[in-house]
């Protein structure tokens, strides 16, 4: 018990490593495997051929059966290793399989055919990245256009979100005014409404505004996020009041106080909101699917999910495209991650 407690409380890192240090490093090592492993697995899997994807037991690295060209046969033949009766193991190419017997030839001397029971042979495999999982779908559709649409939606929506949310948060954190509690209640109340359950009414509103099949139909509805207002407000509450009063003494207009003092000081929180907004927008699927039917306005997420049919899901493409959509999020994360702690810490609802 004490040992475990020490694990969580000991604060001195000097000197020898206490066994609790080892335990916490073990904990972290497990965490790294558990947290990164699945994603790594996804990335590796995305390079597998459809056949390899379905294989059990799965291999870690993407592998494919080796094929050889053998004189006299127009198609490349799959290569197997076969234990011979004399105890040696030879690599043979399979010509055809009939029932449980395979007809095989030695690639070196293609004249003689060998008959081998199928369960005796094991495929010779080599690591092979199925880049075609990426190349084919990307070539098949207008990738750049969809990317462009997604980027436009993500960037514009994030900018709008940042601006209007921060303005509202500014009003709710810096001023005292009539109706403030009501506004806060509205924000916190809607914080908890999952968008899924008002999808249809929002669709109606958007249709009535004539926005269907316009990227604005995707951008506008989610722009005023209660989460964003809440997060920014909590952060802005930590900005010393003195600064705002100092700015007033410095003859700054309220707009300037917002734009020149409060906004720059809220950068960590803005960065957090930006990360979340980018993530929401980039990954958004259900809503764009409802309002965007024309392929020229399709976002990447819709386009990529076109690999999910009624009866078949083309997993090799789907996984590859999932990796493609992960990349930008990863980049944004790498860029902004150091804000996350400060941002969230200070919005830690103190």
């Amino acid at each position, binding site marked *: 018990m004490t040992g475990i407690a020490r694990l969580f409380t000991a604060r001195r890192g000097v000197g020898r490593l206490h066994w609790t240090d080892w335990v916490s490093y073990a904990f972290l090592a497990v965490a790294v495997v558990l947290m990164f492993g699945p994603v790594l697995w996804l990335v590796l899997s995305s390079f597998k051929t459809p056949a390899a994807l379905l294989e059990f037991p799965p291999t870690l690295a993407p592998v494919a059966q080796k094929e050889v060209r053998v004189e006299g046969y127009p198609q490349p033949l799959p290569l197997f290793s076969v234990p011979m009766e004399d105890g040696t193991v030879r690599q043979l190419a399979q010509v055809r399989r009939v029932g449980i017997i395979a007809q095989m030839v030695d690639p070196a001397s293609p004249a003689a055919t060998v008959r081998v029971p199928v369960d005796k042979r094991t495929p010779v495999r080599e690591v092979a990245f199925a880049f075609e999982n990426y190349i084919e779908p990307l070539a098949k559709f207008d990738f750049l256009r969809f990317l462009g649409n997604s980027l436009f939606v993500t960037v514009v929506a994030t900018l709008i979100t940042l601006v209007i949310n921060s303005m509202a948060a500014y009003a709710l954190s810096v001023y005292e005014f009539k109706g403030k509690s009501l506004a806060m209640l509205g924000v916190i109340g809607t914080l908890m409404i999952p968008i899924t359950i008002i999808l249809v009414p929002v669709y109606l509103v958007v249709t009535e505004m004539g926005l269907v099949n316009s990227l604005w139909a995707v951008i506008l509805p989610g722009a005023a996020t209660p989460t964003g207002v809440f997060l920014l407000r909590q952060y802005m509450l930590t900005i010393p009041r003195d600064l705002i009063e100092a700015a007033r003494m410095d003859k700054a207009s309220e707009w300037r106080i917002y734009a020149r003092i409060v906004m720059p000081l809220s950068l960590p929180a803005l960065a957090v909101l930006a990360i979340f907004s980018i993530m929401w927008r980039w990954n958004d699927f259900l809503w764009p699917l409802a309002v965007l039917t024309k392929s020229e306005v399709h976002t990447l997420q819709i386009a990529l999910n076109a690999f999910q049919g009624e009866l078949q899901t083309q997993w090799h493409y789907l996984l590859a495209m999932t990796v493609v959509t992960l990349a930008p999020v990863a980049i944004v994360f790498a860029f902004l991650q150091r804000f996350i702690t400060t941002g969230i*810490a200070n919005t830690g609802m103190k």
Partner: protein
Amino acid sequence: MTSPAPSAAPVRARFAPFERLGLALVRLFDPPMRAVQRLVGVGRMPYVFLLPNALFFGVFVFLPIGINIVFSVTGGTALFPSQRPYVGGQQYAYLLDCGSYLEPATCREDHFWRGVANTLKFTIFQMIAMVLFSLAAALVLNRPIRGRGFFRAVFFFPVLLSPVVVALIWKWILQRDGLLNAVLTTAGGEKILFFVDPGWAMFWSVFVSVWAHMGFYTLILLAGLQAIPRDIYEAAEMDGTRPWRTLVRITLPLLWPNLLVVLVLVLIRSVQVFDEVFVLTGGGPGTATMMIVQYIYTTAFANQVQNFGLAAAASVLLGLVLFGLTLLQLYFTRRKAA
């Protein structure tokens, strides 16, 4: 109180061009905003700042909520409220028609109640697991270990994955011929069909949710831990406190405000859970992991008869529950402030 500037400072250099653009924008908007300020006076400026957000909110959140309420008292499959026949409380009555509220099977709309029960179960398990794991992670990350930033990122990055991707990844790992079963069989064990056993299905739903979101809560708790002054620990040490007592008597009580925040957020999020679990388990086996939001979604979209009325009624009920939770949270934060 220190201002948050130090962390903001290094960024400015990198964003210098953006900053110049920003300054230009500020200058552009300055004259009109000044005019507005002269017009309405300083005291009314907050309304001006609230206006854009409020407009968006009104049109895309409050109005739809209103329409939803209209949906819930009408029937049929027509989309436009004006074309839908008024049915009064029929949808609600249908949902609430139960032999015993503790036994979903006795309800007319048993799926709704199964959803409620499953959501409740999920929420409880997930709250416990989430708090335990994020607390453990936060406590470990709070130790003076090398590479803290890296490990923080390790825990946080799944937060950035979309729920669908998260579920896909894990489904891929947990399926019959997935990675985990491969590991189990190589270790000499039997394959386990995780999605056939209701217990396992619920377990993995909770596990995957915790996996995906614990980073966020870990950071909130970590912030709380780091806000506990070091000298309190030193005082405890001078007072001859054993580590376990330090954890129980010092750390946890001082972390309580942050723990409360985590509890409330986890609660709200788990009540709303949908895509993650849906993609992972499909709500099965049977209806063992079908959540309330999945019920609403299926009723409104996935069935051939898109029953907006019933779905809306269910969502209004859910909304009322969530609103209750909101008030609870407000109550707690108020009390904390006091």
